[in-house]
């Protein structure tokens, strides 16, 4: 069965490594913070200027001066720090942030990503996404495998304006874990009870299947 958004977040959380600094984008990526595996210490960075982001506040504890990049009220953990936006993107471009998880509208088999604009229609802007994808050492895309009309978001070539070139390393969707390799999308894992055929049908770019593809474990 295809995963829901929390399922995707849960699988992504397995990618977290002890001692890493992580930037989570808006949407599914934000949910990853709820599933940090036990015994692992990670620190969350939000590009509007905080390291050591904590959970949402209790009622009455919310502070208009303390939000994340999704403009949600948050808390800070002991040891947290605040900084300005140039410092924030300095630590991103300077590759001090180890992992970036963000959403996407399209990803190509070359690792190109589009997630900021639908010409003539949706105009939201790139926010920090272009800086993040141009710089991060390790980028994971969290998204649904197809869009609302059922059209694949994993393409041979992006049709929408790009956010970054050749930067995505891994994609985790409701159906599969996929790595970007030289020749295309390498199918690494399947969601529980999802067949290779289903994934193949939902993938427009070149899907590479090597050996037996295991099911995801949580």
């Amino acid at each position, binding site marked *: 069965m295809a995963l829901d958004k929390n399922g995707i977040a849960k699988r992504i959380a397995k990618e977290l490594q002890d001692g890493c600094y992580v930037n989570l984008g808006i949407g599914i990526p934000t949910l990853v913070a709820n599933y940090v595996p036990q015994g692992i210490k990670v620190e969350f960075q939000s590009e509007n200027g*905080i390291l050591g982001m904590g959970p949402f506040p209790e009622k009455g504890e919310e502070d208009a001066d303390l939000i994340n990049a999704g*403009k949600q009220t948050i808390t800070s953990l002991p040891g947290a720090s*605040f900084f300005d936006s140039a410092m924030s993107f300095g630590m991103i471009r300077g590759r001090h942030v180890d992992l970036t998880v963000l959403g996407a509208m399209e990803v190509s088999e070359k690792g190109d990503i589009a997630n900021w604009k639908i010409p003539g229609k949706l105009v*939201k802007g790139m926010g920090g996404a*272009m800086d993040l994808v141009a*710089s991060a050492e390790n980028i994971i895309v969290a998204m649904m495998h197809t869009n609302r009309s059922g059209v694949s978001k994993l393409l041979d070539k992006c049709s929408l304006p790009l956010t970054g070139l050749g930067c995505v390393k891994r994609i985790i969707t409701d159906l599969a874990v996929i790595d970007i390799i030289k020749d295309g999308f390498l199918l690494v894992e399947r969601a529980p009870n999802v067949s290779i055929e289903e994934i193949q049908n939902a993938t427009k770019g070149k899907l590479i299947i090597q050996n037996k593809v295991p099911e995801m474990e949580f």
Partner: protein
Amino acid sequence: MINKKVNSVSQALEGVQDGMTFMLGGFGLCGIPENAIEKLVSLDISELICISNNAGIDDFGLGKLLQNKQIKKMIASYVGENAEFERQMLSGELEVELTPQGTLAEKCRAAQTGIPAFFTPAGYGTEVAEGKETRVFNGKNYVMEEAYQADFAFVKAWKGDEAGNLIFKGTARNFNPLMCGAATITVAEVEELLPIGGLDPNQIHIPGILVDRIFRGNLYEKRIEQLTLKKI
């Protein structure tokens, strides 16, 4: 000690004119110069170019200047959550320059610190880089971005003193410190204004040399855009 204090928001905004370029601090509605914006809305000035990470929401922040059609061009990184903005942009009434957030921050800092241009990897190979000089350093591609030029910077700090020294709070810091001294005139508004000597020099984020006028804002609504609470 040079005293930067002005007694009212009107005095702080003296000299603003049609067609000027303004920098405005804030991320979403967090740390925006509410009092300066409120005053700008009441002034008969238009054709403005505004540099700010976001464009407020329909009825708050920069959204109010948009509703009034006072803005000719908006330079921002993210403009979602604002229906009027999207309408004006898609209809062509409003010129928009979308800029990667880190680049926007750095273009402010470059203006603040006398750097005319810099190279960043952000946006290489995308439409953001179109028409811009690119270069390869150590095998990686970079885009040249230039410092902003602005007439006024409007920033908001938590505490300040009459010498113009500023301290920010939480994530309300964001772009505010980077815009100080990045325009011809920097106007800082603060929640608490202390006499000269009222702040510990060790704690100051922005030294007063980067601030031209400082005043205490009378009204801070500090609206929360997305109230999210711990689920019980």
